């Protein structure tokens, strides 16, 4: 647990402080193409001789923004729509379900490409585009949760006591529906970072020569056999961050469960 927090703090710290830590992540140095670790570039250099460690640091900014931005946007939108659909039923539910079906029937990445193309390149538009695709999963999960929870008698009891819809949504549905949504969200962060790479490849996300972990991975794949460090460095970074976020999600879920807490199960 402590390790996960340390990894996340390093990641966030790197993302915030990157501009002061790096010298020239985009400077092309043709004398040291695909070089291994060496003084000045402890993680080696890429196909244009740029130092991998500096690009990794500056790329953390983008991955942080995209990872958290997309998940926050998608989870908030999806949870709200899903819970409301499950609780209210009727035409609200039918509308949301149709929208979910529509989004699911359409290949997600294609839709994101279309949206990003429409909105124009840039990290902010990328977040919006990926979020608009990502909410579906949360909405489906939240709706299923709301449907089972709304059957529970404590929701009926709250209704009988005169609680309004918002109050029921906020106090009786959301806290109980949160656990699976949190798990989904922790996976979502990693998926968003990778999806960003795909969109950046098409020129819709981060613009070259700027670095993101996704674009570094993608570029590195071409040189996998001659210079594996190009993939290993961002790959390990992505792996560590994803694992840390997942662990944090598990811990948070246990913390939120009052039953587990009082029994001292952590």
């Amino acid at each position: 647990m402590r390790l996960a927090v340390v990894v996340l703090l390093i990641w966030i710290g790197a993302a915030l402080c990157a501009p002061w830590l790096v010298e020239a992540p985009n400077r092309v140095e043709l004398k040291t193409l695909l070089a291994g670790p060496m003084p000045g570039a402890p993680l080696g250099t890429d196909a244009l001789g740029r130092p991998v460690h500096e690009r990794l640091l500056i790329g953390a900014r983008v991955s942080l923004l995209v990872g958290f931005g997309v998940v926050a946007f998608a989870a908030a939108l999806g949870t709200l729509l899903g819970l409301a659909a499950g609780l209210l039923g009727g035409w609200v539910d039918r509308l949301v379900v149709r929208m979910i079906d529509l989004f699911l029937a359409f290949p997600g990445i294609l839709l994101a490409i279309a949206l990003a193309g429409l909105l124009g390149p840039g990290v902010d538009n990328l977040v919006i585009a990926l979020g608009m695709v990502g909410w579906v999963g949360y909405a489906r999960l939240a709706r299923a949760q709301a449907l089972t929870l709304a059957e529970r008698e404590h929701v009926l009891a709250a209704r009988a006591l005169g609680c309004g819809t918002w109050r029921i949504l906020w106090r009786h549905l959301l806290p109980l529906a949160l656990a699976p949504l949190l798990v989904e969200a922790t996976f979502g962060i990693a998926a968003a970072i990778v999806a960003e790479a795909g969109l950046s490849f098409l020129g819709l996300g981060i613009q070259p020569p700027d670095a993101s972990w996704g674009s570094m991975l993608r570029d590195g794949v071409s040189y996998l056999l001659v210079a594996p460090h190009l993939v290993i460095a961002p790959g390990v970074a992505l792996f560590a961050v994803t694992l840390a976020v997942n662990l944090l999600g598990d811990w948070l879920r246990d913390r939120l469960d009052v039953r587990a807490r009082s029994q001292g199960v952590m």
Partner: protein
Amino acid sequence: MSAPLLEVEGLSTTIGAARVVDGVRLELARGETFALLGESGCGKSMTALSLMRLLPPAGRIEAGAVRLDGVDLLRLSEAEMRRVRGARLAMIFQEPQTSLNPVMRIGAQIAEAVRLHAGAAAAVDARVLELLRAVGIPDPERRAREYPHQLSGGMKQRVMIAMALAGDPELLIADEPTTALDVTIQAQVLGLLKTLQQQSGLAVLLITHDLGVVAETAERLAVMYAGEIVETATTAAFFAAPAHPYSRMLLESLPTADKRGARLAAIPGRVPPLDRAFTGCRFVERCPRALARCVEQLPPWHEAGAGHWVRCHLWDADLVDTATVAEPAVAEGEQVPVGEDAAPLLEVADLKVHFPIHRGVLRRVVGQVRAVDGVSLRLRPGRTLALVGESGCGKTTAGKALLQLIAPTAGSIRYQGHELAGLSHRRMRRFRKDLQIIFQDPHASMNPRMLVGDVIGEGLQALGLARTRPERLRRAAELLELVGMPGAAVERYPHEFSGGQRQRICIARALAVDPRVIVCDEPTSALDVSVQAQILNLLKDLQARLGLSYLFITHDLSVVAYLAHEVAVMYLGRVVEQGRVEEVLERPRHPYTRALLSAVPVADPRAERRTLRLEGDMPSPSAPPPGCHFHPRCPEARPECALAYPEGRAVSATHRVHCILVEAEG
């Protein structure tokens, strides 16, 4: 008596640190029905699973011997044990719903059991049909090709019994076989077990919490408490004179008609945790007549009569007269003659709740489930109206529709002259203060993430009756005292309390807004008998103190007899008979009411009863039979019954029956 079929000696089973079965000793003769009686958590199911060697992964049999015909089952290898299971020792479970494989045809599931034990492949199909016929399933050729979801609960339990019989066992262990079933279906299944037993000389180990079922089916019984057997006797001797204080209190806590003005004997406290070693009697903390030595010394077995053994110090020869001292007489609660003639507080007229059935892409309505189909009720101030019926009759839906928790399709609900039907959630809010509800399952009816104080204070907050949290918590603590719980409980979470305590919290929550009417939706059916008695006492006290009116929804006629003033019997969405409780229960006029009453097992083996057994199941409310809904099952049905639904006929000023066989008076 010949050598016993099953002999259990010193059986001890642990699950983790808890010793759930401790030194159990029993004997079962061939062809005998032996009941293992106890409340939830007493270890009776674990005893059964230990006999089958089917314990959950954490369970371990620590000591003892289980001899079936002299062979110790605990010493067999797993392969040998597999040959015993099903062939000599079979088991059926409480929940037929989950005991059958939902994606396999009934016939195939039974054939699987037959093949395991018979071998000869050719005769399998014939044997399956024979078994289905033996358990009384009509049209077995067709049923064998059906899937479990096409069968009713009673039918599924019959299929389970057929599977258990496939290997021709000598002993059938039935773990609460009828608890999940309605009383009329329960009567069918118990009758079936009895017939099978007479035909094949099968011995039955019946595990149950229901004293009535024991009285009707078993020849001998053992009472379990906290993992050990505390009393064993013949059924007749036990019900004539239960020897252990626990057994006595259990019998006294049963609600019946003759306990009406009185309080029920409730057993205080709860079963002790089983993860510690006991130095004295396990019941001592809850026993009203505990002696000093009960705490220090394990009670030995004493003989209370021929074949009647009890584990209690009070039966020590030196002390025998104290043992026969009668229980302190229960205080007679004064009968408050309230509301007999008062204007009704709540008046329901022709209430209907239909659920549309949607089909296809366009979700067209192809039919209606008529859950409630024209119910009229009157609830007077300070009175209890019981709404009785079997599962699926629409009683719960009616209760929820009354509070507008489900929108009624038609009909009127007038509360003090105000029409409630069709009010939006917002406009209904001003009536929420007066109309409250208590649910069946005290686990599901509280938000597990909220403190007890916030649970109780929720209504105060939502209706703006107490704006600040300290104020709400203070009020919640007062309410907890009112329902017999410590006020300090406001700082704790619901899961820290037992079922009975949670139900008290739910009652406190309903009382918080100072209601006048409470809909009690099966508030005690998830609780043990002794805890049920506590809750019924509490409800009765509260009614006397606060002048509450209850709409008491239940399937349990003994609770009705004890608690209600008026009763309405529902069948398939309609009220078939209603009137004052003594009229309906003592002089029932509708054939369904009579059948329902006669199907309830009575905890008195001497009671001579003529059982009116109903055949078949309740039809689906989406396609009710034409005419009187009950006529396909009615033993007195006539051709004209199928023509039209009978009008209500007044038998007396307060007693109305919907049956053409009843002559109206006056």
